């Protein structure tokens, strides 16, 4: 007999798909048989990655944050996502390109931004919360379920952080999907079948998988991935080159170091994009205090040079992928390309050459992951019957044995959810705690990942206790651990302390704090959100039109006064839809003024 499916309560809102990117994020919503992408007021589906936090408490994400980044680089995080998978050391090595003070480079990265110290997880949660609000205001219905994309390279603990950030942002049901798996699902939704190799190559990550796509089941056979192998890495090289030239040409004001660096990064991205299409390009850096702007011409050969390391790294990952799957060039029915970097001819040619498969047609590389994420969402909502995705672990995990050698407990390619039981004992009399190092397999190396800490064991003679430790990888690839004494069945306290990420105790505490958060009824919450946003915009527009009256025409002043008054009245008594419309209108008319103010602000360090 079939099971009754009754989605109920607020947690039952349909899943949305979030392609969480380092440069831009895309949100997809199930729409009829297919998917629609959330767009901003300009119709653009890419929601820019930057997150701006002002000392006054304002939070902006997307285009609004990106616009401010040149003026307030220290307050504007270029990419919240890249905080989750990079160490404090790596970020600090970016120097002025990462202009935020790292107050704790430890397991849970903490940075100072907008006058406060916040953890990487909190910052990602703020970004997700902004996306969720947009969805709810747009659709006037709760958005409490999300399928969020993850790069393959995210460790089990990075994935845990990602999951938790989405929970903190108010998504109550969260499921992750690896980028290549999502792109494969999007392809399957269009009828694609067979053995397929999928490469996702974006701002910071390269992820690739081999997927067996059968009508009912998609099986992830093998996957590989690494961070700092994307467009951002190339941009940082170009930006460093630009900065060196600027510093060589003129003395710069040290107070404008962060501004200059961000300007170089933004310019670098333009250079990369231009040289992907044409053979040469020229950029200008108009610095205040300099007699004339610094002009710099670049040729395609420059880009080839900057891309070399990234290209070579990705190429080695492709070889490793085929080795893991025991497959060779030509073994595939199709090659799926997703992510902005796959548009670069040099990158695309390499992938085609390595895999020897025809590139799947009709796939928009920028939207493929978002569309696939919502395809999984439809399956989770039981709105689509097929296909079920069987995910697998991208990497193997192992424990340090008695002789110091690492022994695998869960191998790469293991289908998840999975578990493995290992037996431990003590080597000291009356020992009540046991610690063991957990490793992850990177290519042929074992690298330390976390410390497993068992405590509250019954004191006994050395070697007597038999402690059964169960390692579990859930369907999202997140690891957890449980332990019990075999004879007495007594549960031990088992904790994971990752080198990067949250400990078991921190995860528990965060989840508990979410559970006690009071459930607000949706119409009231929606009203509050719309009013807050309208209020925030109103304040900044009022303030700007007062302080920058000189930059406005008379007509503009009149229009602003009228719209401000309308908004003031609506905020108190208007319907949600009315306020939302007024909000969009006010945003639209405020746009040109905002640009003028920002441009004027930039004059302080640019010419």
């Amino acid at each position: 007999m079939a099971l009754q499916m009754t989605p109920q309560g607020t947690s039952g809102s349909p899943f949305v798909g979030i392609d969480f990117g380092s440069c831009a994020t895309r949100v997809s919503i199930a729409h009829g048989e297919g998917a629609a992408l959330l767009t901003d007021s300009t119709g653009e589906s890419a929601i820019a990655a930057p997150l701006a936090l002002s000392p006054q408490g304002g939070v902006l994400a997307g285009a609004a944050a990106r616009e401010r980044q040149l003026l307030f680089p220290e307050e504007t995080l270029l990419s919240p996502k890249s905080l989750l998978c990079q160490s404090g050391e790596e970020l600090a090595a970016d120097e002025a390109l990462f202009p935020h003070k790292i107050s704790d480079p430890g397991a849970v990265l903490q940075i100072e931004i907008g006058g406060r110290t916040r953890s990487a997880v909190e910052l990602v949660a703020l970004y997700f919360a902004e996306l969720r609000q947009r969805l709810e205001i747009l659709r006037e219905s709760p958005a409490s379920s999300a399928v969020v994309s993850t790069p393959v390279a995210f460790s089990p603990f990075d994935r845990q952080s990602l999951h938790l950030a989405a929970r903190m942002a108010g998504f109550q049901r969260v499921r992750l999907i690896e980028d290549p798996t999502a792109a494969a699902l999007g392809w399957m939704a269009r009828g694609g079948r067979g053995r397929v190799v999928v490469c996702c190559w974006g701002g910071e990550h390269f992820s690739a998988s081999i997927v067996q796509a059968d009508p009912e089941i998609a099986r992830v056979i093998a996957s590989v991935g690494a961070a700092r192998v994307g467009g951002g890495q190339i941009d940082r090289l170009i930006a460093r080159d630009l900065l060196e030239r600027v510093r060589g040409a003129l003395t710069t004001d040290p107070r404008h170091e962060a501004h200059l660096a961000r300007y170089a990064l933004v310019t670098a991205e333009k250079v990369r994009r231009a040289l992907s299409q044409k053979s040469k390009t020229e950029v200008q850096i108009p610095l205040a205090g300099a007699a004339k702007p610094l002009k710099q011409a670049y040729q395609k050969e420059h880009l080839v040079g900057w891309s070399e390391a990234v290209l070579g790294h990705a190429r080695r990952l492709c070889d490793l992928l085929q080795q893991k799957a025991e497959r060779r060039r030509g073994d595939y029915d199709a090659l799926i390309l997703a992510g902005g970097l796959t548009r670069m001819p040099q990158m695309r040619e390499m992938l085609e050459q390595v895999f020897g498969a025809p590139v799947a047609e009709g796939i928009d590389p920028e939207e493929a992951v978002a569309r696939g994420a919502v395809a999984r969402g439809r399956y989770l909502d039981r709105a689509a019957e097929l296909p079920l995705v069987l995910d697998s672990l991208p990497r193997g995990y192992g424990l340090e044995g008695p002789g110091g050698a690492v022994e695998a407990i869960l191998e790469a390619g293991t289908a998840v959810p999975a578990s493995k039981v290992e037996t431990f004992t003590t080597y000291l009399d009356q020992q009540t705690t046991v610690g063991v190092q957990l490793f992850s397999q990177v290519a042929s190396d074992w690298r330390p990942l976390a410390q497993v800490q068992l405590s509250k064991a019954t004191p006994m003679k050395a070697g007597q206790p038999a402690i059964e430790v169960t390692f579990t990888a859930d369907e999202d690839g997140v690891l957890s651990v449980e332990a019990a004494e075999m004879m007495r069945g007594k549960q031990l306290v088992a904790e994971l302390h990752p080198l990067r990420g949250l400990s078991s105790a921190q995860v528990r505490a965060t989840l508990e704090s979410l559970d006690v958060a009071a459930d607000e009824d949706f119409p009231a919450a929606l009203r509050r959100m719309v009013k807050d946003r309208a209020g925030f915009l109103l304040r900044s527009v009022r303030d700007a039109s007062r302080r920058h009256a000189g930059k406005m025409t008379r007509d503009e002043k009149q229009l602003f006064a009228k719209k401000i008054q309308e908004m003031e009245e609506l905020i108190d008594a208007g319907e949600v839809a009315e306020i939302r419309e007024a909000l969009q209108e006010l945003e639209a008319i405020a746009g040109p003024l905002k640009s003028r103010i920002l441009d004027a602000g930039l004059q302080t360090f640019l010419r």
Partner: protein
Amino acid sequence: MKCWNCQNALEEVLVCERCGVPQTVGFMSPFEVLGIPPNLSWEEEKLRRTYERMALRCHPDLFRAHNDDRVLQAARSAMRGLNDAYRTLSDPVSRLRYVLAASGQTQEIPRAVPEGLQAKAQIIGRVLEAIEQARSEGDAEAWEAQQDHLASLQVQAEKARDRSHATLLALMLEWDQAVSQNDGGWPEMPPGWNERAMSWLGERRYLDVLEARMAAGRQWPAEAPAGEVSGG
């Protein structure tokens, strides 16, 4: 066993055939989980189809829409049980290892030189050591000088691998006959089977290591894939 949700007496292990709700997997053999007799010779395709058919009934993704944490947790347990069982059974050597372990044979089995290679064991050791030394010292000439020896040893190793495979098939057949004599139930161990299976496993471990060393020995270090891949 009864279904925790509808109290129906269960025939299947992973999913209640009446209410469709997945069941928590307790202490159970992987054969029981997959609902198949404890045979050792299985067609790979057939096992995979059995596994996938069951995955389509108990994967947690099928139960998200319920918003019932108990159902979701049970589905996770069922799917974990299914994945763990399939992982054990999908490879013939790991199946054999499971059968030995379930019969109480849990200690590590030491490597043993297969019978056909015993006379050659010393030469094999010398050639491989010479090659490994040449590789580590970067002595291309010494390495080259050993390649003919290596090639002839390779032939011997392949023959040993073939014999090993034939022995495995015989062991599996013998076990399967005992299973069918017991109407598909867990059988009495055929006389001497345990010892033969163990010595087979010991020899297989020797062959695996030997082949890995030979494969490495055939490559001059410079030809090995260059560069460390960070992030895999």
